[in-house]
């Protein structure tokens, strides 16, 4: 009556999807904690160190240590957001006001579908990438979906029907459009380089790009300029300082989420950090060799499930370092002025990305010309 194989397949996919959502959301939650802790350390403070679970606290050595590191803080924060009163101001457009946080969160969580985070070796020695959907156009999918995130911000700013959110959302849409171009252009040389004729790695698949960096230099070393432009654009796309135009706590109160409170604000918050987590993962995949060990070094771990686990761990370590880098930059640099952001995007990054593309087109053509 039932097609059990199909049911199993669908069930497994759903299970994996839930696991992945759980992992990314947990990382987003703990990025918030990391942000608070790292900012505290950089400013000579201690950071959250009071929250404790009733029983865990009394475990010798470990319990107080976890408490000191504020490990339970995200739980408390989440619960706080859940139990807060949902206030909807009278002057908002209710439908879009409620829709905006969802529109902001969905793209952040959708992009992770195509993120490969490890590989599994079958008994025949064939490698299967660990990801939810192995799209051939992975990077295109990510670029397309992640830029949808701005709609959440624009909707929030517009439906709030208030000045500061409106300014924030206008700034953010202008910024997104400016940096989207540089971002896409900075990625083109990378894919040109990877899909040179004869290597077999063709197309825009993220798995192929990771494989091309195994036992070979990372693309960060091959194309430092592309990596730099992509990183700067990534900062702008995730609305992080020095490009946090939509929020601008100091001059726009809270920017697009000024009128939001309770769990709706919480969703915006989580979406921002989910963007950072996914962005860090993308940078790791494209420029830092994904789950491969070090540039020019073959993976030292065996091609078994142990190697799979170590690979995933290594991938996570790189991603976490990048998240730390995001936080590190935030607490180092002040915010750009709005016109400086536009100036940097259109008159510096875009021409630079174009030049970079032209240079690599010529280089790849020269390298690929058949030996005569």
């Amino acid at each position, binding site marked *: 009556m039932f097609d059990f194989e199909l049911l199993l397949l669908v069930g497994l996919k759903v299970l994996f999807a839930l696991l992945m959502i759980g992992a990314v959301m947990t990382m987003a939650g703990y990025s918030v904690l990391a942000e608070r802790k*790292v900012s505290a*350390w*950089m*400013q*000579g*403070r*201690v950071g959250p160190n009071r929250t404790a679970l009733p029983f865990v606290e009394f475990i010798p050595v470990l319990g107080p240590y976890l408490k000191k590191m504020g490990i339970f803080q995200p739980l408390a924060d989440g619960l706080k957001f859940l139990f807060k009163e949902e206030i909807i101001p009278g002057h908002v457009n209710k439908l879009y006001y409620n829709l905006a946080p969802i529109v902001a969160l969905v793209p952040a969580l959708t992009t992770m579908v195509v993120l490969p985070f490890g590989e599994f070796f079958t008994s025949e020695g064939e490698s299967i990438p660990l990801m939810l959907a192995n799209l051939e156009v992975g990077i295109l999918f990510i670029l397309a979906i992640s830029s949808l995130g701005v709609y959440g911000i624009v909707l929030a700013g517009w439906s709030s029907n208030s000045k500061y959110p409106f300014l924030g959302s206008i700034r953010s849409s202008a910024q997104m459009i400016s940096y989207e171009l540089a971002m896409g252009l900075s990625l083109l040389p990378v894919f040109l380089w990877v899909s040179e004729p004869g290597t077999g790695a063709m197309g825009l698949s993220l798995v192929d790009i990771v494989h091309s960096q195994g036992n070979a230099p990372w693309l960060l070393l091959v194309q430092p300029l592309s990596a730099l432009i992509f990183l700067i654009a990534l900062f702008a796309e995730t609305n992080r300082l020095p490009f946090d135009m939509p929020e601008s706590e100091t001059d726009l109160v809270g920017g697009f989420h000024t009128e939001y409170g309770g769990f709706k604000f919480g969703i915006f918050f989580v979406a921002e950090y989910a963007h950072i987590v996914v962005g860090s993962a993308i940078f790791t995949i494209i420029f830092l060799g994904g789950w491969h060990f070090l540039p020019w070094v073959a993976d030292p771990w065996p091609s078994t499930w142990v190697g799979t686990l170590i690979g995933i761990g290594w991938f996570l370590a790189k991603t976490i370092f990048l998240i730390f880098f995001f936080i*590190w*930059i935030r*607490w*180092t*640099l002040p915010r750009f002025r709005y016109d400086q952001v536009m100036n940097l995007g259109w008159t510096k990054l875009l021409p630079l990305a174009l030049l970079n593309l032209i240079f690599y087109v010529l280089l790849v053509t020269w390298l690929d010309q058949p030996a005569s």
Partner: protein
Amino acid sequence: MAKTVVLPRKPLSLSERTYLPQIVTGLKTTFSNMFKEKVTLQYPEEKPIIPKNYRGVPTLVKDPNGREKCVSCQLCEFVCPPKAIRITPGAVEEDDDTRAHVEKAPKEFEINMLRCIYCGYCQEVCPEEAIFLQEEYSSSGYTREEMINKKDKLYELGGTLPDSHYKWDKKKSAEDDGNDH
């Protein structure tokens, strides 16, 4: 009028105009800051060091012999700018040998901490050195009534302070020696 001097400014070099070396320097600074000693005081467990002459909560003190010093002259009540102090005077028993010559002692001494402005006039005006603004600075309560410090609370907060005068002891011994005035 002061003459304005325009300082020549060197044009930025290429590496300076990219800002990247500066950003790296900034990153180094913030990174090294992470390992410096923290300045945070874990407040309820760790208390700050209170400087000398700090004006905390006003308290009543006893002399080293454990005797009440206040003679309820009501000068502090009179001088108190926000009228936070209220004293109900009472008499010292005639036959109280430990407090000979002291005629009065407060029956009730109230300081309303919701009114007190910690100015220290009461300490300044007190001829008996009986009221001091000491190191205690945090007072809290659930009701307004709780925020009125009564006599026993004031003595509890005040404790005993060293006394170099023993004014009334001197009076007593002077009388015993037959040269009272």
